[in-house]
């Protein structure tokens, strides 16, 4: 699920920026090809998500969704700046997941209208472009922040191990996600 989003985001951002920035557009110069890359990547991304849900570990996905849905008192305090004890996902990670899911849907809807509007002017919504752009700005900033915490920031970057290799150091988990470690002990 994570890597489907990650791959699609990077390809869509790259091809989208080539469509968007005149200087990049001039360097690449093959707009219809880029447009196809952009549109088909979007379709492939939606299909890949459907496949993950269809053949993946649905129980684990559901468990994660439930986890993201619930914010307990510690989570709420954490969002207000308190360093409270966190579960497997801290409150910031939950917020990030919620925004990612919502933005993905909004990107898809506005992108669909952009695609449709070029084919039939009756479906051309002037706002679709504006909203698609602003989603891009905001998610680009979120993406940079996400990369910073996951790859560079020394205190948190150990989590990348969990994303790539599937395990994290127990001492580290105890410090950052104590409630998760406790729930595993039960």
């Amino acid at each position, binding site marked *: 699920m994570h890597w489907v989003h990650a791959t699609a985001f990077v390809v869509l951002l790259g091809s989208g920026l080539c469509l968007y920035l005149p200087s990049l557009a001039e360097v690449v110069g093959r707009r219809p090809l880029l447009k196809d890359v952009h549109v088909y990547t979007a379709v492939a991304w939606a299909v890949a998500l459907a496949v993950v849900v269809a053949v993946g570990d649905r129980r684990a996905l559901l468990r994660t969704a439930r986890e993201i849905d619930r914010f307990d008192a510690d989570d709420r305090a954490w969002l207000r700046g308190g360093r409270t004890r966190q579960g497997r996902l801290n409150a910031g990670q939950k917020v990030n997941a919620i925004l990612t899911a919502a*933005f993905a849907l*909004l990107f898809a809807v506005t992108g669909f209208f952009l695609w449709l509007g070029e084919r039939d002017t009756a479906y051309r919504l002037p*706002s679709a472009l504006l*909203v698609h752009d602003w989603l891009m700005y905001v998610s680009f900033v979120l993406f940079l922040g996400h990369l910073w915490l996951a790859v560079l920031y020394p205190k948190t970057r150990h989590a990348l191990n969990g994303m790539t290799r599937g395990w994290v150091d127990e001492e580290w988990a105890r410090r950052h996600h104590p409630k998760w470690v406790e729930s595993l002990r039960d």
Partner: protein
Amino acid sequence: MEDGERYGRRAFLVVVAGGLSSLAWATKASGVFSPVTSSFSQLIGNLLPVGGWRIYTISGSMPVFDPASWRLQIDGLVRRRISLDYEGLLRLPRAEQVSTFHCVTGWTVHGVRWAGVRFRDLLALADPLPQAKAVRFVSMEVPYTDSLTLEQVRLADVMLAYELDGKPLSRPHGAPARVVIPEMYGYKGVKWLTRMELVAEQPTGYWEGLGYDQDAWVGRSNGYGS
């Protein structure tokens, strides 16, 4: 793990609803906030080479301008067929203007500095016949064409531009020359211009063939202002 408030789904739905409803209010909001957002995009424009423009093409690659071989043909219903080279175009009386560029897809660039020639000077060379009522503009980017009536090309701020913001028109902006008509959406401004054909009746251009309006007045066409 099962305790706590179920904020997640609610937050997700609020963001999605906000985003979808913004399809209705984003254009208005961006008008209200444009002093803020345009300075923001100006800032981005200074950091990145954006400048608010985005480049649309319809074919596989952008046409390449070669000053040695490029010609602007003016033909059709004229007394004199004209073939103008780049030097010849630059020798015509120079006109300058600052105007706003509106794209039909909803973006706008303010304060664009154009330089070029007025169509009356171009048309005077060819001397249109009385039955000529419109100009068909042909781009080097095949099959892009569009047209304007003679009345429209003679509006005070309509020109064939060869400079943008003090520099010769770049390849993405339609080098060496493009049509500029600020009162209409950008698709009427044919880029990479190579031919002007004087005709008795306005033909259907590329975007008009896809349902866009022949008269693309800003705010009064293509579903805007109706």
